[in-house]
């Protein structure tokens, strides 16, 4: 019999333990308790989040695979599918940033090629404390190196991402890794295991004691104790991963693989039970056959190890040697460790001796579900008490613009993406630096645009609206690149869901994402939940990172955010309005995080439709989403073109807003575009058809950024000067 202390420490509560006993009709043994504990943790079992996640729209004409598999898949035309997913690796990265971030990349890439898709691009969404803090600088630098070290080695280009710095992440940085891959639509591989007698094969790296109970570790708050509880850190081996990619894709190509699943969180426990459950099968495996690199491992340790770069697959009977041969050609282990049965039971033997015997579905599907209490947090009322008229008026706008351009949340992210190979596979036709990365689909004339976005300060101020804005902004970035948004993947990073205030944030966020996705007709096809992002009891800002994939029908009609030709007209497309709430300006110039951002989904939809049609019709030379730092920052960013910078001169009026709001406000649903003046009439006509306001505000040219506000020239700065401040800011902070 297992002591309550033991199962509680593993993460099961008394009610859950009783439930396990009921399922088994007996006391579970130590190994079985470990297996239930890890599979019923939030990280694997989604016991708190599952009822809420049901709110997402997950279907659509393009969807080939929604949530529930290793990754989602959408049809991108010509019989091709894109497989996509995002995942967190926050807790491991807080302890060992290089390996944590690296293995995060490894894990998400495995999810993609497990579906039979060749990984074609990686993205990342990062959150840290402020770079003025030494520990943060270390975490940031090492995490970026880890992503680079792993991604570069496996030849998957890291094409886009985002990073924000805010005190709320100081004790709990976020590392979210996203990946997409390409596969023929009729060749998508799945994780369900069927066919009695089919051999179960273990392939890839050997098993050690790393990361045991990693999944439960991800389901508790970080404290000094977590250092102790932690079993050896997982270290990544990108070289083995690269071999695993090639061998797996080659093996899948034989058509002799029935089902396949990577071993991520909860290792063998998760892969055996999930594969069996999905295929309505049972499975018998003998873990003494599992290749090991440490001696004396117990069944518990083997079943819970989270060693990296491993997969479980079920081959068609009689073809195991062919499959084995492929893995061995690539220098990898491939061992038959068991076979499928039909009784729905997973039996784990250790050298012939029964070590665990559990119904597959009881671990993989019938996990406990909790309907948690939700309560609006007290801080919401406080931050809403925001009267912008009380803010001191600013006289001198130039230093404010320079300050904003240097803000690490706004400054160029070159320091990061220089370290990522973003060109491998020669598909990246819009490199990092524009609103979204654009990849060509070789041999089709079409392309993809991808981005990941989330302004978590907005989400803190209002999780519902903030999350809807994250979807809107990501979609807008993709639209500005000339693509039609096709699918969303999301990584929901929150604090401890057992606290009603956190659960409220979580539910509001999911509702906001759902509303936006429905409005834009874009389904959620995959995602990941990361709770317990707290340190010393303080939660991070709610951070639902939203990845959006868009499809470009004609790759020649792609668009970037940079001004290209002198004398092009500069146009503000979209809906001006108040936007100081939650803005970077409010924080940077006034030290305040307050107000409530707003978004009108209908207007946003019209704006995106209009912009997309304008790009598709070849009207625009550039399109740039107006986000952090408002119009003034967007103008500057459009000037900073690595292929030759431009100046710009505009005249605007504050039109009922405060002057600082007109310059730096972050009202949603606005896009800054430039175009040949001869095409202006067509754009005006198009905007009218879509019922989208449009303002011609100036022209590209000169070598300065000049803004005339309400009849006086309030900003006149040399591009060269502000560009080098913007480009160098993050690197300076690290020096």
């Amino acid at each position, binding site marked *: 019999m297992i002591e309550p202390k033991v199962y509680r420490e593993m993460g099961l509560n008394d009610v859950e333990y009783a439930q396990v006993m009921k399922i088994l009709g007996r006391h579970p043994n130590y190994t079985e308790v470990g297996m239930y504990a890890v599979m019923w943790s939030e990280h694997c079992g989604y016991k708190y989040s599952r009822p809420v996640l049901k709110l997402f729209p997950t279907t659509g004409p393009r969807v080939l695979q929604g949530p529930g598999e290793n990754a989602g898949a959408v049809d991108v035309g010509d019989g091709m599918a894109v497989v996509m997913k995002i995942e967190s690796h926050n807790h491991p990265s807080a*302890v*060992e940033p*290089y*390996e944590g971030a690296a293995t995060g990349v490894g894990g998400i890439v495995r999810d993609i090629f497990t579906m039979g898709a060749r990984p074609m691009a990686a993205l990342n969404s990062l959150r840290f404390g402020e770079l003025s803090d030494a520990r943060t600088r270390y975490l940031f630098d090492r995490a970026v190196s880890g992503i680079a070290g792993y991604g570069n080695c496996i030849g998957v280009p890291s094409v886009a991402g985002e990073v924000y710095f805010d005190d709320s992440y100081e004790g709990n940085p976020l590392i979210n890794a996203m990946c997409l891959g390409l596969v023929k639509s009729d060749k998508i591989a799945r994780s369900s295991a069927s066919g009695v007698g089919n051999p179960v094969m273990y392939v890839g*790296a*050997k098993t*050690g*004691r*790393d990361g045991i109970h990693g999944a439960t570790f991800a389901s508790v708050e970080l404290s000094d104790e977590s250092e102790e509880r932690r079993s*050896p*850190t997982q*270290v990544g*081996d990108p*070289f*083995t991963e690269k071999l695993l990619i090639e061998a797996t894709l080659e093996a899948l190509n034989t058509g002799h693989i029935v089902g396949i699943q990577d071993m991520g969180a909860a290792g063998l426990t998760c892969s055996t039970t999930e594969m069996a459950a999905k295929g309505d099968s049972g499975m018998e495996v003998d873990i003494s056959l599992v290749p090991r*690199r*440490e001696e004396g491992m117990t069944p518990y340790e083997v079943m819970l190890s989270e*060693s990296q770069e491993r997969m479980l697959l079920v081959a068609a009977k009689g073809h195991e040697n062919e499959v084995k041969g492929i893995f061995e050609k690539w*220098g990898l282990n491939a061992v038959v460790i068991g076979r499928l049965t039909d009784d729905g039971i997973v039996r784990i033997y250790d050298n012939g001796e029964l070590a665990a015997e559990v119904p597959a579905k009881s671990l993989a599907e019938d996990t406990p579900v909790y309907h948690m209490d939700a309560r609006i947090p007290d801080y919401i009322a406080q931050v809403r008490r925001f009267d912008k008229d009380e803010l001191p008026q600013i006289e001198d706008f130039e230093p404010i613009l320079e300050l904003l351009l240097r803000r690490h949340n706004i400054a160029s992210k070159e320091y990061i993406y220089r370290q990522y190979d973003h060109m491998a596979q020669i598909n990246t036709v819009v490199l990092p630096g524009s609103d979204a990365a654009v990849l060509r689909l070789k041999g089709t004339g079409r392309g993809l645009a991808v981005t990941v976005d989330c302004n978590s300060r907005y989400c803190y101020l209002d999780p519902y609206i903030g999350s809807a804005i994250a979807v809107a902004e990501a979609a807008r970035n993709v639209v500005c690149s000339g693509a039609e948004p096709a699918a969303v993947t999301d990584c929901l990073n929150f604090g401890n869901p057992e606290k009603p205030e956190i659960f409220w944030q979580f539910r509001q966020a999911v509702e906001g994402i759902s509303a936006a996705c429905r409005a834009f007709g874009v389904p959620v096809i995959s995602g990941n939940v990361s709770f317990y992002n707290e340190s010393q009891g303080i939660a991070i800002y709610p951070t639902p990172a939203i990845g959006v994939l868009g499809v470009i029908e004609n790759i020649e009609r792609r668009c970037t955010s940079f001004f290209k030709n002198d004398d092009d007209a500069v146009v503000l497309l979209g809906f001006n309005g108040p936007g100081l709430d939650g803005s970077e300006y409010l924080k940077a110039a006034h030290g305040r995080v307050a107000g409530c951002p707003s978004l009108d989904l209908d207007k946003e939809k019209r704006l995106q439709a209009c912009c997309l049609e304008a790009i598709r019709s070849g009207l625009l030379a550039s399109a740039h989403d107006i986000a952090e730092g408002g119009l003034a920052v967007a103008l500057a960013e459009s000037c900073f073109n690595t292929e030759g910078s431009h100046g710009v001169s505009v005249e605007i009026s504050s039109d009922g807003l405060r002057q600082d709001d007109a310059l730096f406000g972050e009202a949603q649903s606005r896009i800054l575009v430039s175009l040949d003046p001869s095409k202006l009439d067509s754009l005006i006509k198009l905007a009218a058809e879509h019922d989208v306001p449009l303002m011609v505000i100036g022209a590209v040219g000169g070598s300065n950024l000049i803004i005339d506000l309400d009849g006086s020239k309030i900003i006149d700065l040399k591009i060269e000067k502000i560009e080098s401040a913007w480009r160098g800011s993050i690197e300076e902070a690290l020096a």
Partner: protein
Amino acid sequence: MYRARIFITLKKSVFDTQGQVVRKSLQALNFDDVEDVRMGKYIELQLEAADKAAAEAAVRDMCERLLVNTVIEQYGYEVSEA
């Protein structure tokens, strides 16, 4: 003046993939009898200190604070008069 030699390796519990690959490569070169290759870092430096004990203390301190990632690495050192 003291001379310190510092040897850093991965902890035994951490898998040394690099060492594995190097071992396989040595075997392919017909060094069949090679086993258990561990790859690590080697640092040599000179430092001023009051005496050998002080030099050793300083070296330990450097290792803990900067040179070694104690989450996954372990280290040894030798200090001698230079």
